[in-house]
């Protein structure tokens, strides 16, 4: 299954994003971003189905959850 990753600045934002997406029916998994992809040290992100990507980004934006760069896996 093709997945996408949305990076988030902290684990708390990651948890909040996961809970918010779940409330909208989007499953996600909290992960630690690979060190070669993270910015300025340790960083968290959520992994979602690639097909959910645009909906997920919209929901995060609507809920004022700040997200960072995203990289298709």
């Amino acid at each position, binding site marked *: 299954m093709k997945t996408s990753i949305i990076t988030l*600045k*902290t*684990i*708390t934002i990651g*948890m909040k994003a996961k809970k918010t997406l779940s409330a909208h029916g989007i499953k996600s998994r909290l992960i630690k971003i690979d060190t070669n992809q993270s910015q*300025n*040290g*340790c960083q968290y992100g959520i992994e979602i189905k690639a097909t959910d990507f645009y909906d997920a980004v919209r929901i995060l934006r609507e809920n004022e959850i700040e997200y960072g760069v995203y990289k298709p896996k």
Partner: protein
Amino acid sequence: MIYFDNAATSFPKPRNVLNEVTKCITKYCGNPGRSSHRLALSAADKIFETRILIADLLGYNKCENVIFTPNATYALNLVIKGIISKKCHCIISDLEHNSVIRPLNKALTKYGGDLSVFNTDIPLSDAIVPLIRDDTYAIISTLCSNVTGKIIDINELSAIANKYNLKLILDASQYIGHRKLNLKDIYFTALCSAGHKSLFGIQGSAFTIINDYGLFDTLTEGGSGVDSFSPNMPILLPERYEAGTLSTPAIASLGAGIEFLNKTKIDKIEKKIGYMTMLIKNQLSSMPYVTLYGADNGIISFNVGDYNSSYVSDFLDKQGFATRSGYHCAPLIHKKLGTTERGAVRISLSYFNEEKEIYSLFKTLKYINQYAK
């Protein structure tokens, strides 16, 4: 032992709190916010869940603004020393604990500021407004005295602070859990509370809600699990103010304590505590040699005859009652009550106290009262 020292720390804890602490230590106590294995993420999940429980309990919508601290004193040090970062004037109540007085004194001394104390025996606006000066920056107040149980009206306090554009720092350690508190539409800068008193967490659990986020300075710096290559703490809440490993068992216990409150209902707790407080107040008032200083919200302070409070409290201990004597780390109210020589005996209740325990205490107090003069 019949325990009447719940304002110091509540005892016993609800069964579900004990179960959660055991479960945490034996099943999921990884380091929250550091690693990404299942145990670490389970611990982080529990901590996030507790942030939501606290925010929901207080009608507050930003769970990320809930900052966990080891105790309420630490929370008050964090916000007072962070917010008071210039020469200014502050106003505090005459009920304050040393957890407010000492960090504030240190911050004001550092910048050459000063403070005024408002009288809680008169209407708040009459007490506070005349003290406000051009350089007044903050009001810092408890919502409930840990000596007399006196309640300060948060709505009135908040309205004054808002009207005069002052920071408002609240200490709710003796309030939350016994009374309902809804922060929705309440103007405040930060609210601090212990978790191990009427919220039924274990010692090591406390928090502050930082509402007016102006990126004030940190009290401690260290690992945060993010931005590892930056020499500075992250700017985002809550990580900015949570350097080092959080105590997952303590935070999990606090979450379980709040779940117990939600299940039991605070209205029911307030009613029971109110009834028992009134019962004690009425009985003590009928004893000729008892001087009663205050009785509200499950906190009752008194002396018997001319006995020192420590003598009475020690006698009660020998008879199987846990109370607290002395000054309760609240020097201003003891000066006001005229108890600087001998302190006062404090009874403080929890939901788990029973009426029969109170009648048992009365028997012993009546015995002491017989020999008093």
